[in-house]
């Protein structure tokens, strides 16, 4: 049985890859995937601790999180499709239509 720290370190790495992806990447779709990575990092932490505590509540949380993440995927995908249809680009750096 692998010690919990392995999972946690992995989760932290995933989380930071996600953060970096969000902050650095310009393609909205990749940003979006980085976000999913962050969600899953959290899920991993939940599951790891859930096993550590021999309690189910962490896993149930993951269940909910997955659902929510799916809803977000749906919305995100829809938004990206709409914006691509209007603008023919999903480069977040080009989202500069709004300013003072």
């Amino acid at each position, binding site marked *: 049985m692998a010690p919990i720290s392995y999972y946690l370190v992995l989760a932290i790495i995933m989380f930071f890859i996600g953060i970096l992806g969000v902050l650095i990447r310009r393609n909205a779709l990749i940003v979006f995937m980085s976000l999913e990575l962050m969600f899953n990092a959290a899920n991993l932490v939940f599951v790891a601790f859930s096993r550590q505590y021999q309690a189910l509540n962490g896993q149930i949380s993951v269940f909910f999180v*997955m659902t929510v993440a*799916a*809803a977000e*995927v*749906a919305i995100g*995908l829809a938004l990206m*499709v709409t914006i691509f*249809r209007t603008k023919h680009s999903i480069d977040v750096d080009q989202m500069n239509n709004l300013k003072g």
Partner: protein
Amino acid sequence: MLNDYLPIIILLVLATVLGFLVLIIGALFGPRRPTQRKAAPYESGMIPYGPGTRRISVRYYLVAVLFILFDIETVFFLPWAVVFRQLGWFALIEMLVFIGILLIGFVYVWKKGALEWE
């Protein structure tokens, strides 16, 4: 725990080996005489016109989105089914509510025409 999954992993490894083996066999024994015409993407014998991958119709995105949503609902059915007997009528009522909400969404999607393939 691990004992349950180790055999599957063994199978997975073997299956992967098999898959690549087939590829390698093909690569080893198959002749290799590419020409420009042969390497061109197949387009009923015509010279290919325009890019091979083009923009995907939005309908596919719609299916993808709907799938994600409904698939997640399906995921909820499975654990519910496992504990159904312990919970009895309560579980049934809960699931009816769940399905009811799902159906409302379903009717909405239907009426809005998202299920029409055109």
